[in-house]
């Protein structure tokens, strides 16, 4: 307390410029006068009295110094002195200062930019209270190689009452619902969730309320919670929104709450993040299947652990529960399926997909920062030779080495800080432009903000980098050979051997680091190129997909598109009208999972093969799009065996399916799949225990296509016909010379003239889908390539600076050699040999480190081996070429040294 008070008193003296010690002088004078007077009274002569008084007072200079030290904070006073001096020094060599500041601005600006992305995603993945308690629960059937097969309602109830969790929620993956009744029917992204969903996240509504967690309505309870964005957009921020009716898929819901502005639903994809309506459902009554233990909902389970329970402990408790359930229900959990329930941190599921890319970017940008720091350290050392005299003079006048180091360090730190602030300012001013480069599929894109936290980061990085990379140069600069430097009459000084060794080490490490970055960038580029050039197995050329969504009322009997026959009337009419649109050559229809590379969730169904599996729980899951017969021709997917569906495969005829080669290989190895029968369970509104199980016959095999992922050549797929399996999501594919701006309006007119209640939205070409499926890869590839180019430039500058310096230092030696008859070519070779030595050392070190790095990033590569010889060789060649070119300029200068001038100078 006392010390604090003293500190502030001194600080305020410092700030108010109260540095004078006039008060002390006056007091001293007064003191001496009184002492003299007393001495005179004691009988001394006036002169002697004064002398004794001064003696008794003590050394005035020391006292003044101590008084002064107490008056202010000496540390800060010295700092401000040093800063003023540093500013003068920086202004004296503006070229050097500008280059150093620009280099640091680049390094710190780039690091800060990537940090701001990581801050929003990896560091704060879950914007909910106590996020560590949130877990995702997944059911696996490792025995049949099936993961995340969904949960059944009885299992959910078991988990709720297990005592491990505060509460367990189930939510859909996010789907669409039609909002009708306004001017234009609109498709909104909604999620059906259990009533305790918001309670699990611990977020409350801004107005009204969220769902009652104890609500046990079996189906939808007809209450809706809406997002802040929807409330503003669709309802004009109506303050009386609570209780208003909402017509969703022809069902009447009531708004019970509006979520706060910042609330964002969980989800790794943008579509899920944009959820605008939440509907509470008990998951057990219509339109959900009956709550049987074997009936798994393809939904997401998120739970909040009891406080203080670690995930590992919770998993152990859960394993015990699973074990006892398997004993209790042996029929539902066959041994061979090996049912398990797995917990994972929720944050993992949000950012898991991009974590690797972001860490790669952070490492890449870290390397750039490192190279910038090394470069600036190198520049500082180069300048040291120009300042040797100044430092030697100061040392001769009695400056201590620590004092010199402190002053030089202040100068360096100022340089780094200016660089950091410049980097941040550039970032701040260009953030709008930069954010446009970030792919939309990045989670939490909207949370990326360049604010105070990022500024603090930039300043902290600058100070840390400045201290780490400034100490050595400051130490080396302050250690000049006093006599030698002062004796030299001319400008400049001879560099110390320690300093030039340090410079060489710095250049070698710079070259090595940039080689690592260049290898990483080339490998990513190769992967991207291979993916881009890979034959997707389908023809996206000139195809546009436009989506619509059929309403699915909660009461199936109110659904006018309930059966395949009912729906196919609509679909055939849509196809007929679409073909009549100008420019359209072909038209086909599929569901959302049939959009090639354009959907976030594959539609996975358990595949039950006749005579092999008997139950859902044992079945492997398979991707199963539903399409119209024209789909295969439209996308150019060739039939290999058997036949495709035709318009005559309808609801009353036997169900048929077409599989791809991968499915044939995986599920019917060495057999003819044609004529085999399968059942895909959990089809909507199909009862599990229906007396006559509907078998589907495989009638054809098509070639594999990369419709799920460009990186995966063959994912097993089974296609079924829309005319036999109604589906609420409808995508209309159109091929031809289409006007992309007009086609959505034209198609909307056509579809709404059949049913005005249908929303028509989201026209996208297949080429766009293909390209956006590569967006994260493209982004990281472009970024790393940019960083690698920067690194190469900096490394080139670094080696150029060092060789120039060496040449400058050796002017006399070169002059003597020339005078003694050396050829100019010899001089050139001598200098280049030096550069080559540094380059070879850097490249060797770089190749070794790049091998480690490339193996670490093997997961991000496609079609190229982490030790790809041609990449390594090419990159090494480019680096060597740039390094030698950088050496060539000073080497030419060395060659042109005029012996007479150089020798006279020295």
């Amino acid at each position, binding site marked *: 307390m006392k010390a604090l008070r*003293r500190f502030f008193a001194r600080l305020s003296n410092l700030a108010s410029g109260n540095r004078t010690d006039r008060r002390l002088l006056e007091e001293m004078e*007064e*003191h001496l006068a009184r002492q003299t007077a007393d001495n005179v009274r004691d009988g001394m002569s006036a002169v002697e009295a004064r002398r004794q008084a001064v003696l008794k007072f*003590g050394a005035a200079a020391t006292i003044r110094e101590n008084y002064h030290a107490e008056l202010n904070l000496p540390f800060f006073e010295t700092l401000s002195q040093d800063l003023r001096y540093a500013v003068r020094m920086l202004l004296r060599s503006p070229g050097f200062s500008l280059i150093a500041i620009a280099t640091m601005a680049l390094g710190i600006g780039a690091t800060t930019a990537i940090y701001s992305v990581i801050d929003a995603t990896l560091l704060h993945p879950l914007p909910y209270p106590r996020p560590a308690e949130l877990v995702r629960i997944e059911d696996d059937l490792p025995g049949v190689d099936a993961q995340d097969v969904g949960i059944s309602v009885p299992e959910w109830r078991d988990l709720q009452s297990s005592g491990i969790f505060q509460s367990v929620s189930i939510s859909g993956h996010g789907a669409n619902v039609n909002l009708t009744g306004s001017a234009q029917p609109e498709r909104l992204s909604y999620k059906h969730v259990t009533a305790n969903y918001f309670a699990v996240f611990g977020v409350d509504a801004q107005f009204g309320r969220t769902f009652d967690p104890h609500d046990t309505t079996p189906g939808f309870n007809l209450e809706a919670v809406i997002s802040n964005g929807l409330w503003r957009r669709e309802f004009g921020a109506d303050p009386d929104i609570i209780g208003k009716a909402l017509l969703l898929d022809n069902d009447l819901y009531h708004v019970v709450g509006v979520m706060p502005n910042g609330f964002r639903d969980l989800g790794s994809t943008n579509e899920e993040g944009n959820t605008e309506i939440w509907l509470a459902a008990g998951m057990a009554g219509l339109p959900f299947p009956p709550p049987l233990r074997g009936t798994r909902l393809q939904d997401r389970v998120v739970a909040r652990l009891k406080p203080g329970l670690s995930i590992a402990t919770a998993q152990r408790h859960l394993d015990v529960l699973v074990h006892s359930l398997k004993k209790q229900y042996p029929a539902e959990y066959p041994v061979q399926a090996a049912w398990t329930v797995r917990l994972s941190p929720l944050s993992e599921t949000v950012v898991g997909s991009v974590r690797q890319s972001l860490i790669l970017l952070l490492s890449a940008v870290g390397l750039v920062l490192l190279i910038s720091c090394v470069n600036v350290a190198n520049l500082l050392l180069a300048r040291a030779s120009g300042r040797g005299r100044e430092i030697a003079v100061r040392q001769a006048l009695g400056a201590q080495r620590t004092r010199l180091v402190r002053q030089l360090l202040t100068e360096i730190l100022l340089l780094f800080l200016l660089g950091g602030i410049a980097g941040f300012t550039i970032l701040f001013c260009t953030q709008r432009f930069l954010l446009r480069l970030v792919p939309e599929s990045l989670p939490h894109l909207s949370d990326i903000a360049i604010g105070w936290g990022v500024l603090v980061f930039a300043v902290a990085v600058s100070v840390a980098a400045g201290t780490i990379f400034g100490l050595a140069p400051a130490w080396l600069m302050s250690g000049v050979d006093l006599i030698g430097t002062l004796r030299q009459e001319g400008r400049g000084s001879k560099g110390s051997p320690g300093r030039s060794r340090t410079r060489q080490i710095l250049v070698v490490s710079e070259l090595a680091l940039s080689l690592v970055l260049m290898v990483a960038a080339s490998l990513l580029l190769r992967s991207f190129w291979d993916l881009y050039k890979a034959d997707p197995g389908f023809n996206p050329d000139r195809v546009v997909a436009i989506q619509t969504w059929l309403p699915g009322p909660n009461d199936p009997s109110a659904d006018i598109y309930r059966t395949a026959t009912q729906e196919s009337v609509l679909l055939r009419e849509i196809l007929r009208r679409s073909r009549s649109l100008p420019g359209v050559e072909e038209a086909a229809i599929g569901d959302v999972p049939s959009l090639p590379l354009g959907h976030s969730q594959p539609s996975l169904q358990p595949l039950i093969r006749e005579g092999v599996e008997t139950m859902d729980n044992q079945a492997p899951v398979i991707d199963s799009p539903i399409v119209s017969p024209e789909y295969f021709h439209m996308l150019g997917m060739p039939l290999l065996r058997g036949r495709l569906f035709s318009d005559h495969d309808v609801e009353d005829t036997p169900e048929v399916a077409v599989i791809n080669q991968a499915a044939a290989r995986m599920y019917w190895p060495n057999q003819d799949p044609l004529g085999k029968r399968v059942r895909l369970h959990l089809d909507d509104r199909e009862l599990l225990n229906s007396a006559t199980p509907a078998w589907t016959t495989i009638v054809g095999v098509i070639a594999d296509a990369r419709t799920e992922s460009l990186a995966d050549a063959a994912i097993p797929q089974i296609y079924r016909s829309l005319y036999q399996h109604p589906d609420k999501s409808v995508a209309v594919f159109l091929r031809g010379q289409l006007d992309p701006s007009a086609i959505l309006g034209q198609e909307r007119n056509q579809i709404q003239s059949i049913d005005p209640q249908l929303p028509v939205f989201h026209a996208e070409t297949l080429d766009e889908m293909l390209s956006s499926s590569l967006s994260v890869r493209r982004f990281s590839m472009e970024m790393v390539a940019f960083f690698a180019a920067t690194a190469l430039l900096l490394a080139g500058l670094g080696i150029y600076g060092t060789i120039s310096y060496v040449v400058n230092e050796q002017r006399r030696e070169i002059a003597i050699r020339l005078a003694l008859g050396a050829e100019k070519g010899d001089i050139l070779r001598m200098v280049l040999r030096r550069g080559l030595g540094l380059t070879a050392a850097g490249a060797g070190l770089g190749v070794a480190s790049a091998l480690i790095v490339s193996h670490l990033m093997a997961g991000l590569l496609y079609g190229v081996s982490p030790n790809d010889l041609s990449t390594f060789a090419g990159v090494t060649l480019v680096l060597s070429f740039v390094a030698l070119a950088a050496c060539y300029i000073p080497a030419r200068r060395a060659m042109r040294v005029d012996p007479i001038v150089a020798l006279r100078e020295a």
Partner: protein
Amino acid sequence: MPEKSDVPQGTLALMVLKTLDLLGPLHGYGIARRIEQISGDLLAVNQGTLYPLLLKLEHEGAIASDWGASENNRRARFYRLTKAGRKQLQAETGDWERTAAIIARFFAAKAEDLS
């Protein structure tokens, strides 16, 4: 900076506080005189060290100072004890007495007492 004083810092500060407590507001020379008088030759040399100490105590809030006129109408800076300074003096006096008592007992102890 280390104080180059023959008197330990804490002791001198305590003496200053006690002097101001006993005699009320005083100027620097007066304080030096009193300490010299009471403690003998303790502050016979290096009286100037008092002034950085006074500034430190003032920064700590234990004393306050103002310009004023002294008995013979000369301008002098007067130091006086503040409330916080009085409290500090009490606390430090107590500490000092306890320490002194312990040391005294220690020195008074004879060999047979310790066996």
